């Protein structure tokens, strides 16, 4: 069953800009420009794109915060903007940039309030809280007011708050932004377990592609309000026309190896040469060809940099209106 469904969803903002002393210009900005996708129950999907591509706008429509200008949206069968309060019981939301907790209250009080607001049965609340406290290492933080928490601590606190009511869908908007390596690893590990054990559907936006690589099998790329890619992470290479790199160490300095079929030399540094070849092809025949013709000391294959692949995808998007 598809838990999240979007069909031709658009969000248009009218921006008023001062043009002259009193005159004002109205301009329409399409933050989301006709997006359709489905997410089945239990899937963990990465949603990436450059700044201003429409990621957050999409998430905000999926939570009911923003009303779509056009198109159809359903989350767990509910139209988010019409039935926001009913939907709220079934989703969890974490905004990396700002907390949904009460700034002046200790975490424990915030959680208590969440429990009453969502009417979470006692036993379930305690089980969920204990689990979060343990896995997210919140024990020492429960009595600290939210405003005194560090960014990483607060984020863990936010993730816990979003999960106390056992949501079916969890939206994470930049959940690892500004976190140190240890906090990142902890949050990622927690999310992976959550998805594996509870089958929670997760939609995650991020700028950190490691998040995606470690958590999501499926990735959607949005640019200028349109989906430019939706599929497996590996598939990005095919689409992005990315290249792998064969790094060859020769016995001595030689002129660039121009006679290796299917590859081209992109760099030479003394006895070391870099050969680029399509990521979709195997490295084996290439290695054989090189070894046959040249005095080889050592070699290694470098995987394409996903960031570059995505940067190329962004570049190919439709022009900004």
């Amino acid at each position, binding site marked *: 069953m598809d838990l999240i469904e979007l069909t031709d969803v658009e969000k248009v903002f009218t921006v008023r800009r001062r043009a002259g002393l009193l005159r004002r210009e109205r301009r329409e900005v399409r933050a989301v420009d006709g997006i359709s996708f489905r997410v089945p129950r239990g899937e963990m999907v990465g949603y990436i794109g450059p700044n201003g591509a429409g990621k957050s706008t999409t998430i905000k429509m999926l939570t009911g915060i923003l009303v779509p200008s056009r198109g159809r949206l359903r989350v767990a069968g509910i139209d988010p903007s019409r039935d926001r309060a009913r939907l709220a019981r079934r989703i969890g939301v974490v905004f990396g940039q700002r907390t949904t907790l009460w700034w002046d209250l200790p975490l424990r009080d915030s959680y208590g309030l969440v429990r*009453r607001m969502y009417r979470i049965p006692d036993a379930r609340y305690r089980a969920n809280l204990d689990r979060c406290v343990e896995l997210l290492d919140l024990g020492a933080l429960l009595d600290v007011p939210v405003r005194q928490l560090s960014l990483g601590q607060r984020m863990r606190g936010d993730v816990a708050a979003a999960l106390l009511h056992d949501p079916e869908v969890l939206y994470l908007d930049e959940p690892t932004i500004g976190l140190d390596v240890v906090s990142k690893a902890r949050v990622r590990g927690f999310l992976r377990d959550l998805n594996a054990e509870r089958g929670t559907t997760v939609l995650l936006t991020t700028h950190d592609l490691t998040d995606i690589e470690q958590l999501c099998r499926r990735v959607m790329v949005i640019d200028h309000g349109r989906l430019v890619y939706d599929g497996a992470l590996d598939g990005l290479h095919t689409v992005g026309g990315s290249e792998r790199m064969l790094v060859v160490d020769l016995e001595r300095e030689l002129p660039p190896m121009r006679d290796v079929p299917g590859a081209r030399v992109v760099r030479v540094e003394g006895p070391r040469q870099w050969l680029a070849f399509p990521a979709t092809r195997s490295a084996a025949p290439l290695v054989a060809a090189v070894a046959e013709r040249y005095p080889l000391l050592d070699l290694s294959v470098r995987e394409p940099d996903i960031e570059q692949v995505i940067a190329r995808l962004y570049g190919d998007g439709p022009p900004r209106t």
Partner: protein
Amino acid sequence: MGERGHALRAYGLIAAMWIRSTMAYRLSFVLTALGNFAVSALDFVAILLMFSHIDALGGFTLPEVALLYGTTCTSFGLADLLLGNADRVGRRVRDGTFDQFLVRPVPVLVQVAADRFALRRIGRIGQGALVLAWGVARVDVEWTPGRVLFAVVMVVTGAAIFAAVFLAGAAFQFWAADASEVANSFTFGGCTLLQYPPTVFAKELVRGATFVVPLAFVNWLPALWLLGRDDPLHLPGWAAFCGPAVALLLLGLSGLAWRAGIRSYRSTGS
């Protein structure tokens, strides 16, 4: 029961939580509540000073003015306590923290109104109620059960009318984040206006306060009836009983504006 019950309980929960958190600093609470009491009491001191030079203000005696003053302050205080924090919504809209209200299973208005629930505002209510009690005891009115009930309804209606104005002010902040100042001129300004008899003001002002922003139904029209006086606009006698209907109408309109505001909310980037 049902959703409405849940909403009220949620209001209680959030308010209780804020009360608990203010009570962590008990002395500070007592001082601010007293301060609240004292500041609003100064208004009445001004009236007392006036009456040390005159016997009647616009034809109203001191106890009669006390009755007007007491009902307004109590009504306003109640509305301010229950809904006054709604005017913080503009700031939240601007900095994007309004988002968090929209992802919780409790009506947004409940969360906004109960946000930072300020119990210290009972200072103003207490002060208004004291003056009201004194006025009630001293005015030349025969307090039949019917009239007592009428006075109680008047205070509640007044609170509802002020609440509607607060709500409308909050709603307009979705379009103009600084609208709270305009709204304040109607709430706080209206409260000051209604402390005095309508007869001291120009007729245009009274007319405006009756037909444009119908604050006159908070206490002027009902109190005039209670005190057996003619109103300066010569409205039909039943106008004094229209308060509850006016309050409901206003609340309905403000509620619609609030809904429209939420639907037009644009959040902030990222």
